């Protein structure tokens, strides 16, 4: 049986295999700036041990329970490597570089090397791909986290006056970002008990139908909660686009500039600003 043959080989020649494997990795290039050879060695040793145990139980199904420790170890390793800045091929090379020493052993020791080689090759390919997958998964998670924190950073809600909030939007808006803006603004309205909120889009280069709809939805949602929204800073091109797109602004209050909107908001709150010199 190839499974037991491979397990036996791994067990009997553990020392030599380990030495040759580490050498193979060194030849393929170890990122000495990120990891020392000692760690590589101990990682390799750990995987070799786990592999020996798992291989004895059968090679065919990586989903079966006895492969869990091996997968767990590769998972941890790939994830930490992806966070440390290794490339995906460097991560996969860890497993693939075991091929050369292992194949050499099989060639030397087995009566029917082709069959065993094929099985060993299939196994290492699967494990290598598994490494790449967890590496990618971890990368995607990082990207998602960064996207979220960037979106939060880019949407500050500021209090201009007791009861008046403003959210200056800068940069292009997609539906995802507009949605986050909307939620942040409405949360802040409740938190600060503000009756008025100014959405300033001076820094927004273009507005498409989706974004216009989202802005409208925000205004309607705020109204449902008992607050009023004013949209300010609509540039001429955007005004033209909104009309062209046929978006019905309905009874949404719009002002040309943030200053105008602020003035109107103060008026709504019955606040009057008087110049100190004009007596």
């Amino acid at each position, binding site marked *: 049986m190839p499974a037991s043959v491979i397990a036996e080989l791994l067990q009997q020649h553990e020392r030599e295999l380990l030495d040759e494997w580490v050498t193979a990795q060194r030849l393929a290039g170890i990122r000495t700036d990120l990891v020392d050879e000692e760690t590589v060695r101990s990682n390799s040793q750990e995987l070799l041990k786990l592999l020996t145990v798992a291989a004895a139980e059968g090679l065919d199904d990586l989903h079966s329970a006895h492969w869990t420790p091996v997968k767990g170890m590769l998972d941890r390793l790939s994830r930490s490597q992806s966070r440390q800045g290794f490339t995906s091929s460097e991560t996969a090379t860890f497993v693939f570089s075991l091929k050369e020493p292992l194949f050499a052993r099989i060639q030397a020791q087995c009566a029917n090397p082709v069959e065993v080689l094929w099985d060993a090759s299939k196994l290492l390919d699967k494990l290598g791909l598994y490494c790449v997958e967890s590496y990618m998964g971890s990368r995607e998670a990082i990207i998602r986290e960064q996207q979220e924190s960037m979106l939060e950073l880019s949407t500050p809600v500021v209090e201009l006056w007791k009861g008046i909030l403003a959210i200056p939007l800068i940069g292009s808006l997609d539906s995802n970002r507009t949605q986050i803006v909307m*939620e942040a603004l*409405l*949360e802040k309205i*409740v938190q600060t*008990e503000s009756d008025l909120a100014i959405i300033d889009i001076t820094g927004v280069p273009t507005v498409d139908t989706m974004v216009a709809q989202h802005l409208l*939805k925000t205004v*309607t949602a705020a109204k*449902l*909660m008992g*607050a009023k929204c004013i949209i300010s800073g609509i540039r001429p091109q955007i005004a033209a686009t909104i009309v062209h797109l046929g978006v019905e602004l309905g009874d949404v209050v719009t002002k040309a500039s943030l200053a105008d909107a602020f003035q109107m908001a103060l008026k709504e709150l019955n606040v009057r600003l008087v110049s100190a010199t004009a007596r």
Partner: protein
Amino acid sequence: MVDKIPILKMGKYLLLSIQVDMHDQLALDLQEDLTNQIVKHRAKGVLIDISSLEIVDSFIGRMLSHIANVSRILDAKVIVVGMQPAVAITLVELGLSLDGIATALNVEKGMARLEQMVADDELLELARGEERDTSAKAGD
């Protein structure tokens, strides 16, 4: 499960706070109970606090609209206060904008607004009354 939502009377106003996940029959009962109470107490205004409601679906939305319409006929103002942001966003997405229902951020603001609306109404009535008086005199 709760089988009735309490309605409190305070002066000219009725107050109610929905704090349970309402099943449909409970909403219908509330609708009827409230209508009776408005007539019984000759209420001028109704304040509905929904700050504890975690969802408002089309059924509850319809109940709120119905209450507002019936109250208008019975000459009482209605204000809905404290809707949560997540609920408001969901309602808008669902396609319900509850047109014609006055809203406020919390009970305090809602009460002030309600008093304002009722006072405006009384002033208007008063002005109309005087107009009638003068025109009646002129007709003599």
